[in-house]
């Protein structure tokens, strides 16, 4: 009997944090999004805030902008990361050096990455100065506005700076564990190098590619610091919008913030569901070596 409960007892501390703090926080946020916030006198459950937020053009613009920056940055990071991993895998020399260099951005915090991108890409940044020094541009304004711009280029570049090495690292690890004799077998059956990549290696990498894509997509969708530091004034990305609503001195605005947070949480849940589905999809060919 004691044996039966032992795992639960051992899991209790972490379960306390997950259920007690995380779930409680989520539940409180959910209640507040439904208008139940007794501390400021809101005691009735209502869908009014959902209706207002979900029909607000500003919110919809933010949602579109958030999905756009997440999608573009994650997709580009995926394509470049996979190609980078494959080229490192193929390179016979300097593999160790390359492997170390590309891992570096992974350990740098996002706020530092934002600062680096800011210093390099602003109109008075390092890149603009280098171009000016080389005589390619004659004044500051000739350098395109890449930071605080409505196309989110600064945000996307920051996410790429972090996302590409993450994808490359994940994919490279899986790639180096794939039995290289499979490549021999495919070549021997008439495939050329390109076909080996598309027909053998890429499908075998798919579980790790999809899961790392979902991770960076979910992260960029919910991340706050980079859009806060590098994003445009309008439209704001959803996490920034939720934060601004949250710090509004008028506490009756809190449910609006919580509705936005619930939208973010719902997207995350969908991604978690998709993540688990991905693994089920590929479980039949789990032996990669």
């Amino acid at each position, binding site marked *: 009997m004691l044996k039966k409960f032992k795992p639960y007892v051992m899991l209790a501390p972490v379960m306390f944090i997950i259920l007690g703090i995380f779930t409680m926080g989520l539940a409180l946020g959910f209640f507040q999004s439904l208008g139940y916030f007794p501390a400021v006198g809101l005691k009735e459950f209502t869908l009014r805030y959902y209706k207002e937020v979900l029909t607000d053009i500003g919110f919809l613009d933010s949602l579109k902008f958030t999905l756009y920056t997440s999608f573009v940055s994650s997709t580009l990071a995926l394509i470049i990361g996979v190609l980078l991993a494959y080229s490192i895998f193929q390179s016979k020399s300097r593999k160790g050096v390359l492997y170390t260099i590309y891992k570096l951005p992974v350990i740098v915090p996002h706020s530092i990455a934002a600062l680096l991108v800011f210093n390099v890409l602003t109109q008075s940044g390092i890149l603009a100065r280098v171009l000016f020094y080389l005589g390619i541009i004659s004044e500051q304004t000739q350098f395109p506005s890449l930071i605080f711009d409505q196309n989110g280029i600064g945000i996307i570049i920051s996410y790429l700076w972090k996302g590409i090495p993450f994808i490359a690292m994940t994919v490279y690890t899986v790639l180096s564990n794939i*039995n290289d*004799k499979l490549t021999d*077998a495919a070549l021997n059956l008439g495939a050329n190098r390109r076909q080996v990549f598309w027909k*053998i290696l890429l499908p075998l990498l798919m579980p790790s590619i999809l899961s790392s894509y979902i991770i960076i997509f979910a992260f960029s969708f919910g991340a706050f610091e980079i859009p806060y530091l590098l994003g445009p004034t309008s439209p704001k990305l959803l996490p920034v919008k939720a934060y601004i609503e949250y710090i509004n001195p008028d506490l009756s605005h809190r449910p609006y913030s919580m509705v936005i947070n619930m939208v973010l949480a719902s997207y995350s849940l969908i991604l978690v569901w998709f993540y688990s589905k991905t693994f089920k999809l590929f479980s039949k060919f*789990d032996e990669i070596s």
Partner: protein
Amino acid sequence: MYKIELKNISKVFENKRVLKGINLIVNEGEMLSLLGPSGCGKTTTLKIIAGLFSPDCGDILFNGKSIVNIPVEKRGAVIVFQDYLLFPHMTVEENIAFGLKMAKIKKPKRRVKVREMIDLVKLDGCEKKYPSELSGGQKQRVAIARALAIEPKVLLLDEPFSNLDTRLRESMRIFVCDIQKKLGITTILVTHDKEEALLTSHRVAVILDGEIKQIGTPAEVYEKPSSPLVADFFGEKNYLEGEIIKGFFVCKMGKFKTGFDKYPRVMAMIRPEEIELTDSEEGSGFWGRILSKQYAGDKIYYKLSANDIQLKCMANSKNMFEANQRVWLKIDFEKTIFFKAEKS
């Protein structure tokens, strides 16, 4: 059907000469075994024929035409690998169709060929299964079907049965031989298992330390090994040094009649199963003493001593002798293989 010729093929890996001038001819429709211990260069030879490695020197001819500069994917020499190497993300039928797809064969034709291969390797009902859902024997059949589907010029089998259990290995061996006979495809089998080589091949090439030491029919290489090295590869042997004088083999044990007179100083090779043990003197032989006995069911392994020379003997378990017992060793020296003795 293709004839394969290897001309003076050499290969060096990390300053080690793995192949030292291999010369080999495999006739059209023939099944030849490359037999040798691990690390002797037999798989390297196979990969060179397939185009996965390029030789440092030498040439490879298919029906008289050099193929050494033809890339692996266009060479038409397909390997069935030791560890099957089925593509884990493809079903059985997708695996079999892979080579056809690469050759841009149209879907309807592909389907017909895949069906034909599935019937050939008797894998009906497994078409939609993934490799992880198959047994070892089934995986091996898929690997064979996948190789045969593209109608290769040459089939190369790289220790294809070594991962299978004894019973399955036997049935797969018969299965592969039947297919080879049916299709008449020129085949090279790489193996370290002498029994497998002797049972399956038209000819056997014994490869030791990167060199082909002997090529012949299974009976030739077993019965008439060209050197003690080849002979030892087929199992433990006894060697007696002596001289040939007027048709007689004279050694420490005595003087024995033999039809051999090629070299004056010789080494007689006596297989353990060629020594007959009796408790009384009969025929040509000599006395010895049993040192030890190992019982192995249908046979018994003895270690004997005769004139301070240790000999190994394998006898059936009808007449059992005990350790320290005096026995008569009866040997027919007229059937013995003699090698030229090394200069001492």
